[in-house]
């Protein structure tokens, strides 16, 4: 297990390193780093200071060393627009994005798994077919378009919920969160649903396919032959088996949710990292873009690592083979 963990952590670090090299090359090699990293309005003295600080007059590998060294110390440059460290600005926005992503994940899992299992147990029923049809729509329609429809229906036509913004926030565990006040919650509902729909469709399809597969297995029949209640057969024997692939997907999707939040945050003007990224791209605030990229890579790789560990805890067979291997 420890060997496995060490190897997995090593692979993750390698992935982060590879992305760091790509980002570095993207910024320092393709473009002129002075243009990229120094504000267009900067004075000659400021430019000279930056060149000095980043070692832009030195060889490429030394520049990379400085880039990595600075990054490790949390220095990913200074925003042109806000005049503050880019990482700091992003970390300010992180809680909003994480709140949105986690609520959306909870929604997609909490609704997606039961619906998928239901559709898998009764694939030919009307409910089963409706669930599948709905999931195909949720799966194939672009995210931003679903978000716009939600706004059109619930904010413009019905007027039940606000169309954008984050609403009132309160402090919770040292972070500003929305879900504790009614105003904040009402602002959270539509974006969370929007972000959840796509993943929910994925989870429904996956849960349904796996439920069908597991239900055909002898051990499910044997569980019934032992006289277990249908409840126990589904909730223990079927569910535990489908959880292995589903947890994998959920974990991988949490990472992509942080990325997909870019779209949802833009549609609903949700003040998270994703909205910040789009604003920064439009304002050419490149240090923020670089910082966003590095942080997101770190989050995604970290989540993938976590998923693998959970996965190995869930499936005793993998635990064994990995320990041997």
């Amino acid at each position, binding site marked *: 297990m420890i060997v496995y963990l060490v190897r997995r952590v090593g692979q993750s670090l390698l*992935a982060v390193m*590879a*992305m760091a090299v790509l980002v570095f090359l*993207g*910024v320092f090699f*393709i*473009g002129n780093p002075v243009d990229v990293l120094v504000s267009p309005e900067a004075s000659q003295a400021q430019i000279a200071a930056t060149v000095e600080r980043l070692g832009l007059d030195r060889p490429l590998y030394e520049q990379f060393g400085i880039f990595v060294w600075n990054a490790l110390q949390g220095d990913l440059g200074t925003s042109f627009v806000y005049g503050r460290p880019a990482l700091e600005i992003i970390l300010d926005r992180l809680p909003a994005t994480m709140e949105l992503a986690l609520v959306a994940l909870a929604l997609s899992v909490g609704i997606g798994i039961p619906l998928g299992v239901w559709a898998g147990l009764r694939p030919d029923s009307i409910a089963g077919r409706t669930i599948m049809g709905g999931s*195909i*729509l949720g*799966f*194939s*329609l*672009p*995210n*931003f*378009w679903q978000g*716009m*429809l939600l*706004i*059109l229906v619930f*904010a*413009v036509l019905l007027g039940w919920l606000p*169309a954008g913004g984050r609403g009132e926030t309160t402090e919770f565990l040292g972070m500003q969160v929305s879900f504790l006040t009614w105003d904040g919650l009402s602002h959270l509902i539509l974006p969370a649903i929007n972000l959840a729909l796509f993943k929910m469709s994925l989870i429904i399809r996956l849960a349904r396919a796996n439920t069908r597969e597991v239900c055909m297995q002898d051990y499910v029949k044997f569980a019934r032959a032992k006289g277990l209640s249908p409840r126990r057969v589904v909730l223990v024997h079927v569910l535990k088996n489908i959880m292995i692939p589903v947890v994998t997907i959920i974990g*991988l999707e949490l*990472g*992509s949710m942080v*990325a*997909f939040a*870019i*779209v949802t945050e*833009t549609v609903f003007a949700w003040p998270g990292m994703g909205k910040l*990224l*789009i604003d920064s*791209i*439009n304002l050419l605030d490149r240090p923020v*873009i670089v910082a966003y*990229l590095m942080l*997101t*890579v770190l989050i*995604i*790789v970290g989540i*993938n690592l976590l998923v693998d560990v959970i996965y190995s805890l869930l499936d005793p067979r993998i635990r064994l083979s990995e320990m041997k291997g």
Partner: protein
Amino acid sequence: MTEIATPAPVRIDSPAKRIAKQFVEDPIAVIGLILFVLIALIAIAAPWIAPQNPYDLMQLSIMDGGLPPGETSFATGQTFWLGTDQQGRDMLSGIMYGLRISLMVAVVSLTLAITIGTIVGVAAAYFGGRFDSIVMRIVDLQLSFPAILIALILLALLGRGVDKVILALVIVQWAYYARTVRSSAMVETRKDYIDAARCLGLSNRRIMFRHLLPNCVPPLIVVATVQIAQAIALEATLSFLGVGVPITEPSLGLLIANGYDYLLSGRYWVSVFPGIALVVTIIAINVVGDRLRDVLNPRLQT
């Protein structure tokens, strides 16, 4: 005179014919296919069938700005069946031109991505060893990050433009094809006839493309239909976010984004109609793709 009785020839349908036969058994798939062909024809013929050229400023009148569907033009008297946008542009024409750009971007990027992915995938499977493991490491690394994130970052660094969107889509997509082609080619390389072909002294290139490649086509088609819908959606999303195509060549996604501000004030048509066009296109392709997957996947046929 004796006639020699010839046995009636046994008709064996070619694979393409069999697939076509099975495909049409599902009426929904047929509707999807018809819709898609129709959409493709509209996109190709847009300059000739659109009521106006929405990007010829001479044809636009600011007087016609923001008209709801069904109103007539103050300037020319023509009817705007789907309304107009702020500049008095006929939405129907805008959608036709937008479809053209959306589909063009998707098809071009698909073609390039398939070509690159196939060559890399077949070569990886055929040569194996170091080359294979390096290529597949890159593919795995790339696929572990969401496509939209990669495309967004590329465009943030490259700037807007049709060519840049296409480049981003190719970079995002080639990995899917490389993986698909490699895994089906791997199955084939282990079979004896490839060894036999090597013994015959056939060139590597000939073995790869005449023997390996044909076996990779069915899974490739399935992945391609899924991916082209994804490409259209991704391009629309990027353009919606303002990092995709430039405003001079608006795709459906950009049209939707342009109308987005008016959505809240009740002028739904500027945004909703291009959206419907986009959604119908994507659904039609998905329906066709689903059916193709069922027909082409021999594992599901019993």
